[in-house]
């Protein structure tokens, strides 16, 4: 069953970000989501991490410690092969959700 909830949406954003930008740390993902959405989607940055760890547990992303440009140690995440499939599915689910919600909103 597709997961049409907000948690699923956050997963989708993370996966999409990683598919667009390749390897990235949590802070970078947070920045990207904020910028790309024109600051519309601004959540507490910390709430990103449970999602990241859940995705890592699921095997959809992999993680590796590396140095940033400013020579800080950070945990970098990367989309796995299964993760790519998962992203396609998540995008489809999201479209269904949006269509569904929209249909209800238009219904008068």
């Amino acid at each position, binding site marked *: 069953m597709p997961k049409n909830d907000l948690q699923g949406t956050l997963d989708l954003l993370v996966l999409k970000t990683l598919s667009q930008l390749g390897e990235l740390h949590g*802070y970078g993902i*947070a920045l990207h989501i904020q910028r790309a959405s024109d600051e519309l989607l601004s959540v507490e940055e*910390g709430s990103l*991490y*449970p999602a990241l760890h859940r995705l*890592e547990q699921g095997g959809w992303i992999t993680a590796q410690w590396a140095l940033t440009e*400013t020579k800080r140690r950070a*945990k970098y995440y990367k989309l796995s092969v299964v993760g790519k499939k998962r992203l396609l599915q998540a995008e489809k689910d999201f479209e269904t959700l949006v269509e569904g919600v929209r249909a209800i909103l238009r219904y008068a």
Partner: protein
Amino acid sequence: MSICRRLLNLSKRSEIDAEIDAELKSHIEMRIDDNLADGMSPEDARRNAARRFGNRTLMKERVTGADAALALDSVWSDIRFASRYLAKNPGFAFTAIVVLALGMGTSIAIFAFIDTALIKPLPYKDPGRLVSIYETVPSCPLCNISYQNYLDWKKSDLPFSALEAWGWANYLIHTPEGTEPAHGTRVSDGFFRALGVTPVLGRDFYAGEDAPGAPRTILITYGAWQKRFGGSRDVIGRTITLSDIGYSVIGVLPKDFHFAPRGEAEFWAALNDPSDCDQRRGCHGLFGLGRLKDGTSLQTAVAALKTEASRLEKQHPDSNHGFSATAIPLTVAVLGNIQPVLLMLLSGAFLLLIIACTNVAGLLLVRSENRKREMALRSALGAAPARLFRQFATEALLLVLAGGGLGLGLAYMVVKLLIKLVPEDRIGGMPFLLTVGLSPQVLAFAGIIALVAGILFAVVPALCISRANLRRDLAEGDRGSAQSAWRRIGSKLTVLELASAVVLLVGAGLLGKSLYLLLHVDTGFETDHLATLRVAAPKAYADDNRLMVLERLIANRIGGLPGIKSASISANMPVRSWDGGTSIIVPGRPVTGQRNDIPERDVSSGYLTTLGASFVRGRGFSEAEDDPSKPRVVVINQTLAKQYFPGEDPVGKQLEYEGSHALMNIIGIVEDIKEGPLDAANRAAIYVPFNQDSSRSFVVVVRTSQDERTILPVLTAAIHEIDPGIAVSDAITMTDWINESGSAYLHRSAAWLVGGFAGLALLLSVVGLYGVIAYSVSRRTREIGIRMALGAERGSVYRMILRESTKLTAFGLGAGLLCSLGSSMLMRKLLFGTQAWDMPTLVLVSSALALSALMATYLPARRAASVNPVDALRAE
């Protein structure tokens, strides 16, 4: 995969923790860097980063939660915390676990018996379709069948896929130790196929092997194979001599084979040696076994049997007059009288389990009451209610696991002990008991009660906490007012406990009284100083005259031994069973067409006086009259006199076996002797001279002037001195015989077991009450201090505490007495001579409970009364 790595590294929790910490920290630092680059002051940059990130501790918790390995780890930490908590409160933990083990152990043990006895009692193929078949007359509703009738049934089209006959056989077997009796069974050839039992070695009987004159063949049990043939495989084809007749062994029955209606029997011979009885249609010496055809109901089969029986009755009016036939499920035939006992025991065990669980729940309530402050603190520090509940659940789980594990062990031991306590000759009738153990069903049952108990123990304290006002708890801490959850729930738990204990106590009291009455029932003879012994004479004594010589020799030889007052002989033991009897008529009276089946006892001349039976009128017969060549005489019992000769003097009148034309002169009336089970009503019976209807198996009954127990070996030796070829068995004193008779045994087991439950229940519930009162006193120390400081007398403090306990006891007692009326009605079948509302029992139980409750209150009440007001006020 990473999860595997993490699971493997569970012990390195700190490492994973540090990794998460580092990741979150690097995020915040990068934000600070960016903020600084945007020109914020270091202070603002830090504050802004923290604000944007959110609650770092919470986030970390959530990240940890997302990590499966770490979630597992947090469960583990819960378990560690819970076990530390229990270890720090050893008194509490010990009490709770022991109480749980007791409650669960008894329930599991009793269930193990239920499981074997009621759920899978018969080790046969499709046992639900097996029925036990009987002929029936009004005086004997489930009676033996006649072989001739059986053969006719088999020829007619009855709805059985198998219809078999079996009968008892008692053999004499010569062993190096001498001649001994051996139990056997004679069966029709399809008997084992009907049960679905196949021999493990050799073959089953062929069809037609039960035709008269067929070769004498025999199947032996696994036990007999091991015991008598050393388990040797070449036993097939060997010949074994039983009662001087050679039988060829054709097979060995499976190890787990048993046939409860017969009990212990080593030899299973084909029914191809029709006895005198088998050849007479009017003689009923066998039992019937049938397997219902598929799709046939028991009712249809019974109706068909009845139709066939009435057809035979018309065809053979002389022998079959008044006889019908019926069938009951084999399980009912096997378990008839122990089923209600087992169900009652299960209910008793459940009550005990309820008491144990309420006791532990009460303890947990007290605990949680004391931990309100701890919980309030944890919750103020951000622990979610679910997280707190998980803590309770873990503690409950640990308690139940420990208690249940211990309970299982206890159940195992109880089962082994109970089986050992069952006398060997009783096991024969309940062979399925030998397989009692911790089967998967029993383990599942244990799991279910553990689950229910676990849920109860997790929910009760959680309820108490979640209803509590956290802020008040934090502020008041230990000084919680008396209006606590404890008072709301805890006291009700005590009432429940006390009520359950009352139900058990009343049950035990009634059963105990029944047992007492049963053992003191008027048997009609003097049961002390009587020793008995069963004797089986070999074939050499088949001639009536030789047997008479032997009988007189035994009576005179043993009667002359020192320490023996008199010796006599009877074909049957008293206090055994009422049999169908033989139909008699009073000559000269109009024939009513009704059968008058009267059990007959063949006894030697000295038997009635040896027993100490009292004659109401007339006399017993002399030794000279005990002779087949002399005119027939009979002594009747009082019931017969009242039934057949109301208002007349029977002495001098005559009786006649229906259809025999042999008249018997009534020479005396004896007071009723209890020939049947202790709990069965007396029936009309006749006593006729042994030698006028003798048999080679009989009982020697002697009256002793010294301890009858010491005479038993003397008796055996004396018989063997007369003829070593005579087999003797079952040497027992009359008192033991009566105390161990079936009905006494059943009543005694029930009374002891329920008594044990009741004792435990009383103990647990009184401890529970003590806990309630002691706890309430400890909570009210300050209040009591104030009262005393304001001038309350010690006596009034005593009264205050007593009032609380009396209220609980009264409620518990009242509810318990009401419930026990219901429960006693349910078990009234198991009572003997006792009503469900037996006043003395109810009064005794009530006073015992009230007294125990008073004692349980006394200690805490004394502590309350000896409170020093100054100390009490200062302590807060």
